[in-house]
């Protein structure tokens, strides 16, 4: 007779729903939507992976400017603002976000839960959904960002608040952080 594997599919679906809910949280609250990216006057959001010799493994925040030796980043969270200067030779890798990745949360939720109604066929439809969602969510993230595999460090300035270079009359520490566009999910 047929098996239903309902409990297994239920558990996997539950885990998937949790993953979907977590992944639906925004990458950064300063990023614009894709439809507004061209109007953005601030720098893009950057995640810098630093070499082991660095004090911290990772720096994230708004990309302010890039020069021959350093990257300037402002990290603002809960009212606290950090102005960080990272030496280029300490950078291991990066991902710079041009706009907020719009993960298809409702589609993901639907595709996580619908196999529950598929009975035995859920054994096939659930893994197919999982892999396809993985590919699509990866695409969504990939389209919203560039990594060091795609562009060299020297091209990062395109995504900075000051692509022309850091203004000589300004003090980095006095710059304000980009405002949050929405509440972080």
């Amino acid at each position, binding site marked *: *007779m*047929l*098996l*239903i*594997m*309902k*409990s*297994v599919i239920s558990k996997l679906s539950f885990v998937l729903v949790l993953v979907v809910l977590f992944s639906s949280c925004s990458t950064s609250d300063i990023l614009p939507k*894709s439809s507004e*990216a*061209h*109007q953005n*006057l*601030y720098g893009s959001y950057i995640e810098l992976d630093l070499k082991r010799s660095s004090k911290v493994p990772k720096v994230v925040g708004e990309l302010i400017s890039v020069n021959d030796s350093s990257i300037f980043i402002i990290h603002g969270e809960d009212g606290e603002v950090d102005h960080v200067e990272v030496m280029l030779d300490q950078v291991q890798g990066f991902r710079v976000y*041009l*706009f907020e990745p*719009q*993960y*298809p949360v*409702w*589609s*993901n939720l*639907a*595709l996580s839960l*619908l*196999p529950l*109604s*598929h*009975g*035995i*066929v859920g*054994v*096939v*439809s659930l*893994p*197919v*959904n999982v*892999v*396809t*969602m993985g*590919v*699509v*969510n990866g*695409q*969504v993230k*990939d*389209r919203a960002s*560039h990594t060091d595999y795609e562009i060299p460090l020297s091209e990062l*300035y*395109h995504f900075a608040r*000051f*692509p*022309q270079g850091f*203004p*000589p*009359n*300004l003090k980095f520490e006095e*710059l*304000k952080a*980009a405002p949050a566009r929405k509440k972080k999910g």
Partner: protein
Amino acid sequence: MKNYVLLWGLGLLILSASACKELEYKWHYRDVQDAVHKTQDISTESILKAHLKNGEVYFFPGAWWVDTNSRSVQGMAYHYDANRDFLDSAERSLPIASVSLFEVNKELNISSGHQMLAPLTVVNIGLSFVCLANPKACFGSCPTFYSLEDQGLFSARAEGFSNAICPSLEYADIDDLKISEYSDSLFTLVMKNEAQETHVLRSVQLLALAQNEGECIYQSRKGDFYATKGLWLPRNNELLAAADGQEYFSDADAENLASKEELILEFDIDASQEDLGLVLDFRQTLMTTYFIYSALSYMGDEVADIIAKFENSGDLYETMDQGLKSELGELEVYLWNEIAQRWDLQGSFYETGPIAINRQILDLAHPPKGPLKLKLVMNRGLWRIDRAAICSIQRKLEPQALKPIAVRKSGIESAQAKDELNDPQLQLVSMPGDYFELDFILDPNQEYALFLKAEGYYLEWMRKEWLADKDLWKLRQMFKQPALYLKREAEAYKVYEQNMEEVFWSSQVPAEPLTLKP
């Protein structure tokens, strides 16, 4: 299966390709003329940002142009400081010399993740509707048994008492676990209830048969065991020459579900061999499942009354045999008699259930020396055959029946469950989701072939959706006029067969996670 994976992989590739990254949406220029000329091909209206050396920026959201006489950029612009605080907005004539860098932007037009997932979502919703409309096709049943190493839904080694759908049909079912040459002291059997039904188990025993080197042990339909030697495979049918899960099966007849088909198998047998048997690896398609669920749904809200009436009105087995089974028949085996020039019936195989593959032996009448020709006669669309082989029967064996020495329910030892399985007066009741491990002790100095003997019955849970299908007239036709029923139900069954069986069986291969590799 390969086709499904290839199609799916192709779909993912197309999906990936259709989601190619839009890299170019902003360009930077030191010279404003470059900003004008090199961005002329932008289809949508471009936006200009003029970055000043002091960090301020002028944002031209609409039309802008360069006045070469005044060496300025003109248009409506918003002015922001280095912190991007708004300063003012006006029609501007911004001197080019004051600008450090020009940035031209275009609006991004990106398809959403929802759009990319839409086809898959539609397929999923369609599948949900199919399952809601016909739950019999999607939600199944049966007590199932695994070894500890088995992983994946379709690695079940046995289905217990598949015919025993009510108490009076309780019987002991013997299945080949297809574990030969087992020589450890402990064997653990996993028993699961993965269906929406209640299992009532009288006993579960391990039948161990001491095995000599070079011998194989098979069970007959009657539950006799034979030690055999040699294995001859059909010369005219490669598909049935290996127990590899690549099965022969056919589609049901669209006009009459009781149509029969024949399969001729030829074997080159060593002339010195005498007592020969046919070993068949087989199982059913989902046709029987369809009929069982159809019968339950025809009963609708009277299911309990009708089954109780059946139980009290005599031999239910006989009633069932006179119904659909009399038309569908068994998997009959004929041997070609060269002298008499006719097919002689040797016997038949029958075991209900589409999950676990049954392996049974049928003793053949002594054939003439030389090539051997067999004919399998079976109902179209009812059987799946993995392997057919001829072996030489050496002797009959008596199995050693072993009771479990320990039973764990969901990993926790249960003396009660053990007692219920080992005491013939008691019964173990297993509910959906229950998971038992049964330990058996064997002599480590002996190699065994292992079989399962499970006795009991199960109660299929009624589904709310089935109640709507109540049709007592069809139920009566099913039992009293099975030939007519099988003709009239053919059309509905073909829809079920095409929609569900294909998907169901295509999923049997990957006990391992699905991969894009074909």
